[in-house]
């Protein structure tokens, strides 16, 4: 696949075009176009992620700029309601921050934590899975027993526990600065098991195939076989799991932040925004929590749908 050599006569522009043709003719693209739900999910995810990435450019206000905030503007309702104001389209929160802007910046943080956590758990899980499947023996037993114990607990409890331990170990001054990293690590450490189990399973199948034996016979270094030859052949299902786990990781981050052990209100993610808004729900200021909630639900739903589609598209049994 990656080894396609391009003849010198072909101009450099032709290569991407040809790749694009190949993609357009592929089963993957066909199954994507055929499912309107998936196309809709991709559109929604694209809009939300795009808006989050462009937040500094398109947000009407800067929620981190304390000087621009005024408590006189606090808890304004959305613009289309009575007392609403079009400079705050979705209303303001208890500190006078524009809800639309905090949502845009909050989605950025939620996505950042989610993606970083998935990436970290992917690296951790794939490495441990490769070691377990490739080396076997004691390493395998140890890694898989840990995985079994961890799998018998819900991930959210493990993430909470790691977060709580980090809170008591680290001094208070440091805590505020590294909350983000603690959160990413806590989520990553609670989701690596799925990756490790999948990779271990396929590694054990691939390990005895001829191309691996051939590589061994000609004396390639074992680490190089594992990374250069084995990894590309076991990585497919991992990417599908990563997509599904992205939705779960975003959800976990939101839940932890909602429970008050995630990101602080000064730098809110979607979960923190919902938590802040929850305190004002009983006084009727529903927009502070409901709008971030809708964005969060749409984001998770669309990523979930994309993950489902990817899983089905990669599963030859369902074709």
């Amino acid at each position, binding site marked *: 696949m990656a080894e396609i050599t391009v003849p010198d006569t072909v101009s450099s522009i032709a290569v991407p075009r040809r790749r694009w043709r190949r993609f357009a003719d592929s089963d993957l693209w066909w199954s994507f176009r055929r499912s309107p739900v998936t196309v809709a999910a991709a559109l929604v995810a694209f809009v939300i992620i795009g808006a989050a990435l462009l937040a500094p450019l398109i947000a009407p206000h800067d929620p981190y700029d304390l000087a621009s905030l005024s408590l006189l503007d606090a808890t304004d309702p959305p613009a289309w309601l009575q007392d609403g104001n079009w400079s705050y389209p979705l209303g303001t929160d208890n500190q006078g921050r524009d809800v639309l802007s905090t949502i845009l910046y909050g989605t950025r943080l939620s996505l950042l934590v989610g993606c970083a956590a998935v990436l970290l758990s992917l690296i951790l899980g794939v490495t441990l899975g490769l070691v377990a499947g490739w080396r076997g023996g004691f390493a395998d037993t140890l890694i898989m027993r840990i995985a079994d114990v961890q799998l018998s607990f819900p991930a959210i*409890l493990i993430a909470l526990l790691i977060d*709580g331990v980090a809170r008591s170990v680290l001094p208070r001054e440091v805590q505020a600065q590294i909350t983000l990293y603690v959160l990413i690590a806590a989520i990553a450490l609670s989701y690596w098991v799925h990756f490790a189990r999948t990779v271990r399973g396929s590694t054990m199948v691939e390990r005895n195939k001829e191309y691996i034996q051939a590589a061994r016979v000609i004396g390639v270094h074992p680490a190089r076989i594992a990374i250069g030859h084995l990894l590309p052949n076991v990585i497919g299902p991992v990417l599908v799991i990563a997509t599904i786990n992205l*939705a779960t990781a975003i959800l976990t981050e939101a839940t932890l932040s909602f*429970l*008050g052990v995630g990101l602080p209100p000064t730098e809110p993610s979607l979960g923190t925004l919902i938590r802040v808004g929850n305190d004002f729900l009983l006084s*009727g200021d529903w927009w502070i*929590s409901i709008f971030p*909630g809708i964005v*969060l*639900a749409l984001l998770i739903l669309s990523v979930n749908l994309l993950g489902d589609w990817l899983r089905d598209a990669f599963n030859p049994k369902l074709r």
Partner: protein
Amino acid sequence: MIAFIIQRLLQSVLVMLTVALIAFALFNYIGDPISNMVGQDTTQADRERLRQELGLNDSFVVQFARFAGRAVQGNFGLSYQQARPVGQIILEKMPATLELSFTAAFIALILGVPMGIYAGLHRNSWASQAMLAVSLIGVSLPTFLIGILLILVFAVELGWLPSFGRGTVVHLGWWTTGFLTAEGWRAIILPAITLALFQMTLIMRLVRAEMIEVLRTDYIKFARARGLTNRAVNFGHALKNTLVPVITITGLQLGSIIAFAVITETVFQWPGMGLMFIQAVTFADIPVMAAYLVLVGLFFVIINLVVDLLYYAVDPRLRVEREVAANG
């Protein structure tokens, strides 16, 4: 059979020991237990004597054995935050969580199973399509968001149901129950629905998938060929065979209901173990965290064990496979 039970029991004990070891490590090595107990002006000599008295200078194995021995008796030391025995606090909070969890599990089963059967039997009807669409949303909506929406509609806008707490509770010995007062019943409705919704969609999808799978098999075709009524085929033959995996999953889900109760209890300020755990995490109250960890671990191990044994008892095929594997 006996070998299998012993093997499973050993495995459970091993898991419990691991959990206890983590809890013990939390308890002993995070922060200095002595500085959590004494004041600023205690002398170094006094600290050392206290250390000796509490046995903190003993070897790791001795200390762990002592910790495990105390844990078995329900003694987890004092809470840093409340300065009361942790065992006592947990005992106070447990009834609230268990009542909520079992009510939620009951709702999830009583609604999820019939909906799943219907959706499996009438695959293409608009009602089952609607159920599937709703269940997809149910899976994607975070638990706390469902709780907030329910509070907004039923507590704030309509004012029908309370938005927090357990209502009036009645003491029955050490157990407190909300089931004996009308207020208690009203208070449990919203949290129980919130907690049940996710599990209900899960059970519904599972029953539906199993039903569709079973209805394709040859013995169902044969039963139809014999001229049995739809009712006998669907409920006598098909349903019975779908229930085995349903029992397993539902049993395992009971464990995660107790875990998800952490979120629901926070949203509704339900005075149970989950809320206690969150407060412990926020205040870094290690003894409470350790005790909760051990207790939840125990719940999970017991549930897993019972489900495994139940599965083994319900499905005769498993027994045969094991014997074949053992002899071959």
